[in-house]
């Protein structure tokens, strides 16, 4: 078959650029980069037909470390950039990568509306419960009693943000949680997320070894979620609301809402017809 013959085989390294990451040795984001490139190889997507969009943060540096098209925008606005790109260019596979601060603090509104709008994007959030890039402040997912930041020396005292629950409540069409300590599983879930139509949300527990050294323990704490994927968002949300955050490795929800995709119909209309309406 022609399409098979055309389908070139790619290796994960074909999706990596030559740039050396600025990340700290041991940062969880290295394996996320690996998992993404592995997933792209598995999907055998030509690099030029993939785009990775991000905001600002350590995790948001991913685009330049890949060899696909990348867009490194401003802090918190990756989702609208990706939304515009995907709507204008439905032929591209568009991934969005970023951190918990970028996505849920400054970017929280776009997160809500991206879930609602359900554009066919895959959003991979490297959650380290901290602002790594600005040297260690509390993020929305930080526990209220974490005292490691000079800005909140007695802890934030506020409720951590639950990305997957809010994602479900706002309409995300695919929800999964994975751990950066298992890149093979992560790659597999990313493959599923990309394949699933609509807005797919993948939360990655990705330790910040520098500002949250205690997160090194995550690799031992995480366990494979025992529940199976559901298509009942209310059920999935309820499960997650009472979950401790360390059940990983599974797709937790798959919905079937059709993606938002306004048509660029190449209708017969011409600019002249538009102008005719003004003529006297």
């Amino acid at each position, binding site marked *: 078959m022609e399409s098979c013959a055309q389908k070139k085989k790619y290796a994960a390294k074909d999706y990596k650029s030559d*740039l050396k990451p600025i990340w700290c040795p041991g940062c969880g984001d290295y394996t996320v980069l690996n998992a993404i490139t592995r997933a792209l190889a598995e999907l055998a997507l*030509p*690099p*030029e*037909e993939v*785009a990775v*969009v991000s905001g600002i943060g350590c995790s948001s540096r991913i*685009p*330049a470390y*890949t*060899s*696909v*098209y*990348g*867009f*490194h*925008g*401003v802090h*918190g*606005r990756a989702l*609208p*950039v*990706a*939304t*515009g*790109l*995907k*709507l*204008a*260019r439905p*032929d*591209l596979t568009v991934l969005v990568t970023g951190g918990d601060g970028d996505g849920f603090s400054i970017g929280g*509104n*776009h997160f*809500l*509306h991206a879930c609602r709008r359900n554009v066919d994007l895959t959003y991979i959030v490297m959650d380290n419960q901290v602002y790594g890039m600005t040297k260690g402040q509390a993020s929305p997912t930080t526990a209220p009693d974490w005292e490691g930041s000079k800005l909140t020396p007695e802890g934030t005292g506020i409720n951590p943000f639950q990305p997957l629950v809010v994602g479900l409540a706002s309409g995300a069409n695919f929800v999964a949680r994975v751990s950066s300590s298992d890149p093979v599983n992560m790659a597999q879930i990313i493959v599923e997320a990309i394949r699933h139509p609509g807005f797919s949300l993948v939360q990655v527990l990705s330790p910040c070894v520098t500002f949250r050294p205690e997160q090194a323990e995550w690799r031992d704490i995480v366990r494979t979620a025992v529940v199976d994927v559901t298509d009942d968002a209310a059920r999935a949300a309820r499960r997650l609301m009472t979950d401790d955050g360390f059940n990983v490795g599974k797709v937790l929800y798959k919905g079937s809402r059709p993606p938002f995709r*306004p*048509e*660029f*119909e*190449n*209708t017969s*209309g*011409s*600019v002249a*017809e*538009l*102008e005719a309406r*003004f*003529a*006297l």
Partner: protein
Amino acid sequence: MTVQSVSLVIAGSGGAGVVTAGSLLLEAAANAGWYALMSRSSGPQIRGGEAAAMLRFATEPIMSHDDSFHLLMAIDWENIGRFSAEIPLIATSLIVGDPAHGPAPAALLGGKPREAALAMTAIAEKIESGRPNMVALGAIAALIGLPPEAMQAVVEQHLKRKGQAAIDASMAAFHAGVTAAADLPATPKLPAVAAASEPRWSITGNEATGLGVIRGGVRFVAAYPITPATEVLEWLAPSLAKVGGVLVQAEDELASINQIIGASYGGVPAMTATSGPGLSLMIESLGLAVAAEVPLVVVDVMRVGPSTGIATKSEQSDLNIAVYGLHGDAPHIVVAANSVADCLFTTQWAVHLAEAMQTPTLVLTDQAMGQARAIVPRPAELAFIGQRLTATAAVEGERYKRYAVTASGVSPMAIPGTAGLTHTADGLEHNEFGTPSSQASDHQAQMDKRSRKLTQFNYGDHWAEIIDADAGPGDLAIITWGSSTGPAREALRRFSDAGGKARLISVRLIAPVQPEKMAAALAGITRAVVVEQSHSGQFYRMLRAFYDLPKDTRSLHQAGPLAFGPGRILEQLNAWSS
């Protein structure tokens, strides 16, 4: 020759059909072969409340209202006094009210206009289904010389679906008004024009703006509604759909600007429209588009500021934010439309500039021109179609440089999907490849390149509109921009008719500045007046910053929402020449 025109206002409270009446009159005037301009004003209520339609008719194109109105036809008086500042009435003006609604409010009588009564309600009541606003229209038509046939055609068109009886009732009320006008004092009349001398359009500034960007090639729009820009979007949404484009309503302005950045990065020319508060929210991401070199167009339909200000009224006070608002040194393009029709030219040109230079282009229009409807000569076809310098194929053995330092400053842009040219576009300072860099040399090279591409571009003659008095420029100039151009043109015309010499320079390309072209335009000019609608004289300050102005340069500025009448500008010219 000085414009021969008639200016009138129809006013009344919510239910009185003032706006409908104004629109009918505009269309009828178009049928009569006239040119026209219609603006509207209304009270703070969301719906209903007092409203006024300000109209001016002429036998040749007009771009401004006059200094005062010949006629105010008030269907009732409720709260109409609130419009007094917007409706200058002088001793020769005629103010006509319905005795059923009592006397005219004192606020309207400051200029001592002539007063007359027209029993619109009583007359209308005598006609089955007759309405006072049609009586008013009849009287107006008779007063200003509008042929009844012109109105007949309009009414037939509008009430087609309601049947012949409705048409007859309306026209009966209209004719009753025509008859009743015989008892009213005279106002200036316009001659009827047999057949229009040239094809004409009826269009608002906001519609022209929408059409301009579509003509320029924009096919993706994301936006968040805001007065007075919403009509640009409302026109665009269905229109884009007809030409294979899309409009997306975003969750806020931060989203809309970033959505269009994404779409444009994807290769589809993109724009958004907003007003001051929304533009403020887009500032950070406009800087991103500068640094990442993503072409896009942002239209700011200006309203009265600061902050939420007065959403429904006009001011030219977003010049500063448009030119200087971005953090860091962030060269970009700012253009401004100078009339309802010029919204079309300027926005189409803006798309062309944005695409050619891979940079965000801001277009300044305002509520006054955006929401005004005008009968204008059919706009010319324009050759400006957004055309991006793209990189289409990899060069063997060379890594693609997205931000290559070129002589023109423009770097060929690879559109996603192009094999071999993958790269990451970045808002961090970067080297030629797009790799983040904190080296002073990379910063300098990219800063130079980003500013060079704007300064070296050939903007042709479009940077300004320059008009001389019939007798030549002499040594006087009016320098202006945007909506103030209309009254400035008319001031020049009157000055010229009186034998004066002067030059009008209306700047369309606000940034980057054009010092050489301005110097040429100012050759021989020793005195200039800078005209603008802002409290602090923003345009005057900007001109001082970047241009060498004649030693005797004065700033004629006033805050919105009241527009300059041509008279205020003429005064300055006369003062100089006397």
